[in-house]
């Protein structure tokens, strides 16, 4: 029975119902679910753990579905980054002239994380990365009916403390200005973000 389940999860859903969000993957916390245009999973049970394609506009059409174990393990080289590869220790940022490390707190999370804002080029990249970092925490809190997009959606609002000590909503200012003025980040529960004066989630254009 279980092997059947495994197989079913690997198939594309042609029926139009969006099973994407409910599909279980073997990604470790820190790995986002990768979707190509067809809504099919890339190697969700086999093959490489993929992160989101950070190279904008370089959609990888050639990576096959992971329905064949053989193929998945030897899929052609994709341009996407793979978790933990190359094996250089993550926080040892070598040779970087500038590093803008800021602490990231998530309301209710028992630990802080750090991100280096210099490695991102846009709000989208930053938020995707935050999503990865805190995905495991979030999902533990909810029944896994639907993966909740905790950054852009219902539950959490990304906020930051700027140079003047004010708490602002992430996305208001141009990216570079944000990088320079941001001192720390906080993913605030939406219910508490009332004071920031925004009721709807801000829109982030990918060109920002």
């Amino acid at each position, binding site marked *: 029975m*279980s*092997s059947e*389940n*495994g197989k079913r999860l690997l198939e594309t859903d042609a029926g139009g119902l969006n099973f994407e969000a409910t599909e*279980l*993957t*073997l*990604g*470790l*916390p*820190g*790995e986002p679910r990768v979707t190509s245009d067809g809504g099919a999973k890339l190697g969700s*049970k*086999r*093959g*490489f*753990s993929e992160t989101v394609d950070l190279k904008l506009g370089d959609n990888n059409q050639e990576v096959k579905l992971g329905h064949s*174990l*053989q193929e998945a*393990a*030897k899929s052609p*080289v994709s*341009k996407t*980054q*793979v*978790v*933990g*590869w*190359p*094996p*250089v*220790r*993550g*926080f*040892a940022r*070598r*040779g*970087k*002239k500038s590093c803008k*490390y800021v*602490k990231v707190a998530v309301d209710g999370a028992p*630990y*802080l994380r*750090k991100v280096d804002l210099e490695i991102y080029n846009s709000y989208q990249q930053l938020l995707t990365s935050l999503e990865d970092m805190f*995905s*495991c925490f979030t*999902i*533990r809190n909810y029944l*896994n009916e639907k*993966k909740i997009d905790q950054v852009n959606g219902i539950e959490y609002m990304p906020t930051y403390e700027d140079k003047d000590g004010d708490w602002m909503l992430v996305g208001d200012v141009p990216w570079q200005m944000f990088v320079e003025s941001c001192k720390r980040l906080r993913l605030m529960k939406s219910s508490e973000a009332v004071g920031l004066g925004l009721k709807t989630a801000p829109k982030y254009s990918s060109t920002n």
Partner: protein
Amino acid sequence: MSEQMSDDDERQQSPPSDLDFTSNKARTCIVTGSVSGHTEFQSPYPDQVLENVLENVLHFLTSRRDRNTASLVCKSWYRVEALTRSELFIGNCYAVSPARATARFTRVRALHLKGRPRFADFNLMPPDWGAHFNPWVLAFAKACPWLEKVYLKRMSVTDDDLATLAESFLGFKELVLVCCDGFGTGGLSIFVSKCRKLKVLDLIESEVSDDETDWILCFPEGESHLESLIFDCVEYPINFEALERLVARSPSLKKLKLNRYVSIGQLYRLMVQAPQLTHLGTGSFSPSEIAGQGDQEPDYVTAFAACKSLVCLSGFREIIPDYLPAIYPICANLTSLNFSYANITAEQLKPIISNCHKLQVFWVLDSICDEGLQAVAATCKELRELRVFPVDAREDSDGPVSEVGFQAISEGCRKLQSILYFCQRMTNAAVIAMSRNCPDLVVFRLCIMGRHRPDHVTGEPMDDGFGAIVMNCKKLTRLAVSGLLTDKAFDYIGRYGKLVRTLSVAFAGDSDMALKYVLEGCPQLQKLEIRDSPFGDAALCSGLHHYYNMRFLWMSSCRLTYQGCQQIARAMPRLVVEVIRSADEEEMDVCVQTLYMYRSLEGPRNDAPKFVTIL
């Protein structure tokens, strides 16, 4: 590396004054299995005399491999060896429990523990997997209060643990934390304030959280015994004035490695206080932002020239290359140079490296390009260890270094023993050349960053290159492979890699045969870490004869199933078989994302998090 114990040891049956804390990786942890003994002596008196003699003799045995062997001779030797073992090395903290360790070895002075597997460094394991120092520190606090030295690698240490360490062991002298986490500046503050006899505090590549406490200020006043203070991994500013005063009152200080919040001007002030340093980590090696344009620059050259004993130089965390000439005076004495944080060009490197005739260890960024490596090869004839790290650690970035620099090194540095080389392109020819030019190689780690990348000249897999390495480098004990590799490469490894103890495999091999070759062919294999390779249950089974001889096996994103792992677990009761899944996966799935298994005397651990299933 050997360190002298202090002479003020008052215990009657004290260990000798040389405590040889070697970092050579001898095999095995604690002896498993029962000791078959037979009484050799009839009367108690000769027995006692012989035991005393034995005890005195065994004191001099320092190698843990020898000690393990000695302990197997008979019960008497087992007992005496246990009494005289002063340095305890445990390669996997879950292989044996703290209770068992303290029950057997009651007079331990130094504890060396390793926790998480290495692939955890690359985000292949969720956080909070385990490897907690806490049960160890509590057990040792009760049973071995004369513990003086703790060396931890990849373990989780809390602030409370640091407090316990400082409070429970009155003569505590040395703490070395490598790739550890879980503690912060608050814990450090307590630790340094209470350890009055502290000689060594080395924080190496560890993650230290910022509790916003001034831990440097917490070192007690008065003359300090500090010999080594390493904190280059601490990513927060420190109180420089307090540090300056600390250095001034530490006449024995030999090793000082600063973090990137120390400017070059501040470095100067410290060097002037401590010209006796042998190991220096320079901090940022750039001026602070506050320094004015017209300010008089200190005479850095003289400061360096005054450090006549300096042999090991590192740091350069935010280097301004204009300041590099300051180190010219000491280049000729250097045996170890770490430029792996310095984004410098070949032109900037050349004037330095051309004077480093005695250099044995060199870590550098690939920003120096093949040309820089050629300069290294031209001068550094004594080079034993080379590590070339990528500035841009992505698969498809430009590769400033290639087989050209690699081959140049092999031709110039014939005494090479250890190499770690990140690149984007490589050829079999260059690897074969190195296998012939550098027969003393013990560690060979080549990372071709593009997955499945073949020889870029011939288009062939990299099988022959790695094959040549295992064939020609007869002393090889550690190997990491990469690039496009077929089963043939593993056939070579199994056939010729008879001394290989550590093997790292990623994105390689065609079939189960590859893993079989290795498991059946490499009798010394201790640590095997594999990721994203097409090896399944059948291959796993082929290693049953060997798993008790290994420290661990790691396989992630391969083709293992629960059934297969279950089989192993049933067949081998002394093996702990952990299946690690991603934190958001609730169901027990057919396929195993990560298998981590290791021998253990204790059975399944009781601190496993939810995402770990022990079969």
